[in-house]
C-alpha cells in the first residue's frame, strides 16, 4: 500500500515553532490533510512525542517517535525510532552532550511540553536549538546500528544546517540510505552534482513549524502494511 507521509514536524517544544503546535492541533491537522503517517521531530528532544502518540491513538494516523538532532558539525539529522523507549534512550544521550546554555525565550521562543489533552505541563529550560557534542558519524552509528532506527540528513538542499552546506558532499564514511529534500524546485541542482544520490532514497517532508506548513497528501511511500517498523524499513532500502 501507498501511504501519505510527512516525517519532519516540529511541536511547540522547538523554540522556533509556533505555540499552536500542540498534540491535538498537530494530530487533527494531519488527519484533515489526509496524511497516514507523521513523525514528530523536535530539536534535540522527544519530550512531546508520547503525548502526540497518545493523542493519535484510536485515529487512522500513525505517529513515529523522532528527534531532529543537531550534530557537532551543526548538521540537522532526522532520527526515527520504532518505539518511544529507543527515542528516549537517544534523547538521554543527546541531553548529556548538549552545552549548558539556558533558553532565552525572548530570543529563541518558548519550549513548551504538553500532555495529550494540550495542557501545558512544563517548559524545557535548557536551549534545545544548538549543536550537541556528538558527531554525525556517531549519530548514524547509534541510530542505525544500535537502536534499529533510521538517521536521515535533513533538508540537504538548504544553505544552513545541512550535510551538503557543511561538508560540500555526502562523505563516504557515512552510510546514508535516505535523504530529505525540502524544496522540489532546488532538487535537480543538488542531485546533479552528487552522483551518489542517484541511488539514495529521497523523501520530501515539510519541516513544519506552523500548522499550515504540514504537507498535504502529496508524498507517498510504499509499505506492506502501515506500521512504524515497515516505514523505517522502506526508508532504508535504496532506490
Amino acid at each position, binding site marked *: 500500500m501507498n501511504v501519505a507521509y510527512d516525517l519532519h514536524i516540529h511541536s511547540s517544544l522547538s523554540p522556533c515553532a509556533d505555540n499552536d503546535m500542540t498534540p491535538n492541533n498537530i494530530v487533527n491537522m494531519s488527519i484533515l490533510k489526509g496524511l497516514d503517517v507523521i513523525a514528530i521531530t523536535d530539536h534535540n528532544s522527544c519530550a512531546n512525542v508520547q503525548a502526540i502518540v497518545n493523542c493519535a491513538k484510536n485515529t487512522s494516523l500513525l505517529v513515529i517517535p523522532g528527534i531532529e538532532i*543537531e550534530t*557537532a*558539525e*551543526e548538521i540537522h539529522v532526522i532520527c526515527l525510532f520504532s518505539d518511544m523507549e529507543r527515542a528516549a534512550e537517544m534523547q538521554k544521550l543527546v541531553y548529556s552532550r548538549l*552545552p549548558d*546554555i539556558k533558553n*532565552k525565550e525572548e*530570543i*529563541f521562543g518558548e519550549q513548551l511540553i504538553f500532555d495529550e489533552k494540550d495542557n501545558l505541563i512544563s517548559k524545557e529550560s535548557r*536551549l534545545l536549538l*544548538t*549543536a550537541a557534542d556528538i558527531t554525525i558519524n556517531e549519530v548514524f552509528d547509534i541510530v542505525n546500528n544500535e537502536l534499529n532506527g533510521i538517521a536521515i540528513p535533513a533538508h540537504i538542499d538548504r*544553505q*544552513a544546517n545541512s550535510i551538503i552546506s557543511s561538508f560540500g558532499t555526502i562523505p563516504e564514511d557515512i552510510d546514508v540510505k535516505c535523504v530529505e529534500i525540502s524544496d522540489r524546485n532546488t532538487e535537480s541542482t543538488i542531485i546533479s552534482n552528487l552522483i551518489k544520490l542517484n541511488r539514495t532514497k529521497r523523501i520530501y517532508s515539510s519541516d513544519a513549524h506552523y500548522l499550515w506548513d504540514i504537507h498535504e497528501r502529496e508524498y507517498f511511500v510504499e509499505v506492506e502494511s502501515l506500521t512504524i517498523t515497515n516505514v523505517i524499513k522502506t526508508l532504508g532500502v535504496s532506490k
Partner: protein
Amino acid sequence: MYIDDLIAVIDGKLLTQKVKNAVKIENVYICDLLSWVMSHAQKGDAWITVLTNVNVPAVAMLTDVACVIIPEGIDVEELTLRKANENEITIISTKYSAFEICKKIIKSMDNN
C-alpha cells in the same frame, strides 16, 4: 574602538541601521560554528563569521557581542538584516578576509 572607527579601519559597510548608543569593541572573535560561538564569544567582541543566516543575529543577541563582521564581501540575506535591525544588532560587511581584518585592527591599535 567604536563601531565608526572599526568601519573606517576595515573599509567596512554598515548593513544595518545605526544603533543609538555607542558600543565599544573590546576584542575580536572568529568562528563559524554557531554553537561554539554561543558558548565562547564574549560581550564586546567584534564577531567575524562567514555565516549569514537568520540565526546569526540571534546568537549575537545571546552573546552580547558588539557587532558582527561579514568578511570577503559575502551577501547577507534580507531576513537576517531585518532581524538584526529589530534587535539593534550591528552587521558590517567588508571585502577583506578574517585574517586581513584582524591585521588592520591590530595595526590601527599600534598606531594609537
